[in-house]
């Protein structure tokens, strides 16, 4: 049985899709059979970030509606044989996601995959609640600013009360905090919440801190998950995050302002 992981946040634009792409690629690179599903029906983006937008024939909604079978819709990643993408439909809306339909697809994937990563849309409406309903684990993506933190908190409340595990009184969803777009310089200037501030408010296990990095934008534009850019801080931070998810004890990096000079030359800022 696969473990189902939802990447969620409540707020938009914090890096959910970037994270879902990097995280699923990271798991696949570690040798786990991984599927990543785009739940953002109507605002499909994951295929772009994964660089498979030109190979989309069938999508998630087609499978739910029985217009295609899962194997027809799954797109195998060209860089890793272990990674498959299930794109969202761009022409439908989130009402197309029925609970039974989603459950059917997840159960079928769970039989053959080790991990199923669900890329949640923003908001707390149907798409987001469907993405998290069947989850075993949740990666809550948060930017170090107050509105994102509050939205994440709200999402954590929903995870704790409206998921299948909560409704069946099973063991609760395991929740992990991923801080993205972190800028130690701005924290030092007092313009941004620090890791500690966010953890104080959310009281959650920190699975990673992804520094603000040009590499993320470049990766998105070129359709290569940033985790494959192992020269970049963001890519390394995502690799650490995958390691921590798999149970490795790794110290958090990129939390301090880099000393100018050597660090810049090595990693290209």
């Amino acid at each position, binding site marked *: 049985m696969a473990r189902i992981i939802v990447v969620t946040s409540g707020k938009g634009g914090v890096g959910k899709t970037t994270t879902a792409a990097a995280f699923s690629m990271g798991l696949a690179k570690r040798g786990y059979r991984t599927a990543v599903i785009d739940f953002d029906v109507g605002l499909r983006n994951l295929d772009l970030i994964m660089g498979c937008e030109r190979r989309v024939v069938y999508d998630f909604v087609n499978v739910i509606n029985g217009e295609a079978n899962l194997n027809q819709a799954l797109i195998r990643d060209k860089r890793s044989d272990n990674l498959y993408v299930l794109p969202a439909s761009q022409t439908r809306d989130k009402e197309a996601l029925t609970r039974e339909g989603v459950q059917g697809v997840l159960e079928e994937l769970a039989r053959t995959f080790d991990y199923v990563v669900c890329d949640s849309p923003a908001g*707390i409406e149907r798409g987001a609640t469907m993405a998290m309903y069947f989850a075993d684990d949740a990666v809550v993506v948060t930017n170090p600013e107050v509105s994102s933190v*509050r939205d994440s*908190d*709200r999402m954590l*409340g*929903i995870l*704790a*009360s409206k998921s299948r595990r909560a409704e069946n009184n099973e063991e609760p969803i395991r929740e992990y905090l991923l801080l993205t777009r972190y800028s130690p310089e701005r924290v030092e200037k007092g313009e941004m919440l620090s890791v500690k501030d966010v953890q104080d408010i959310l*009281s959650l296990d920190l699975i990673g801190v992804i520094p603000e990095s040009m590499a993320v934008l470049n990766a998105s534009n070129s359709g290569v998950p940033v985790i494959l850019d192992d020269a970049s801080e963001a890519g390394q931070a995502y690799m650490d995050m995958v390691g921590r998810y798999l149970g490795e004890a790794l110290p958090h990096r990129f939390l301090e302002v880099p000393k100018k000079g050597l660090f810049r030359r090595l990693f290209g800022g």
Partner: protein
Amino acid sequence: MSVTAPQGQAEQAAFELRATTFTLPTLRLFSADLGELTGFLETKIQQAPEFFRNAPVVVDLSHLREAALDFPLLVGLLRGLGLLPIGVRGGSEQHRETARLMDLAILAQGSRGPAAAVASKAGIATAAPQPAAAPRAGTDRPQPVAQAAQPAAQRAGTDKPDPVAAPGSAVSGKLVTRPVRSGQRLYAQGGDLVVLAPVSSGAELMADGNVHVYGPLRGRALAGVKGNVDARIFCQDLRAELISVAGHYRVSENLDPALAGRPVQVRLQDGRLIIEAL
């Protein structure tokens, strides 16, 4: 309207019991929209602040048809505006029950009519906008409380409240060890609510008895929601958005920042909310 007024006269008899007639302002509601009402009332009161200061007022609900009224909040609102709601007239059985619990007098209705029947329907209707995914909510929570919580829930959206203490152990109160998140509501029916974890802003704690919070309290805490004036709130770190005891509330803007981060208790004394360091 007549109210019996005891008048002690020490030299003569210990007391004299007489019926005396008072003219009282009656607030007759035509709409259950409290937001709208607040606006109108504030304007009205600004016109004659002295007249309205501590003015006793009777709430007349008999004209309120099929509307879902958040009665405890209304009382809190009137008190917040400096009025003294002393009684209620008309309204559903449930409103009257709530009024009794909040120590308000139930005054006779001027004209008997279909109002009572309609109003009691209104009481049932209030249950409708309850969180949809809360099959248990109806049985676990008395409606006055659910109503009191409604505005907040509407702002924050509605979640199924965490499973409340198992049915049957209603008197024992409720212990919560996981963080209470924004948008979540917890209610301890008939007892105390004890939270050993942080309470986020946008979360809401309610108890018929006391509320204890041992993590930072950033959300709302309402003790004595059924009108128990002896209920108290205890917390280690007061950063609450709102605190309330038996309908007397204060929002964070009016909390003394000097108390933030210190263990405090909140209690009611002579109808005033007292917040003091422990």
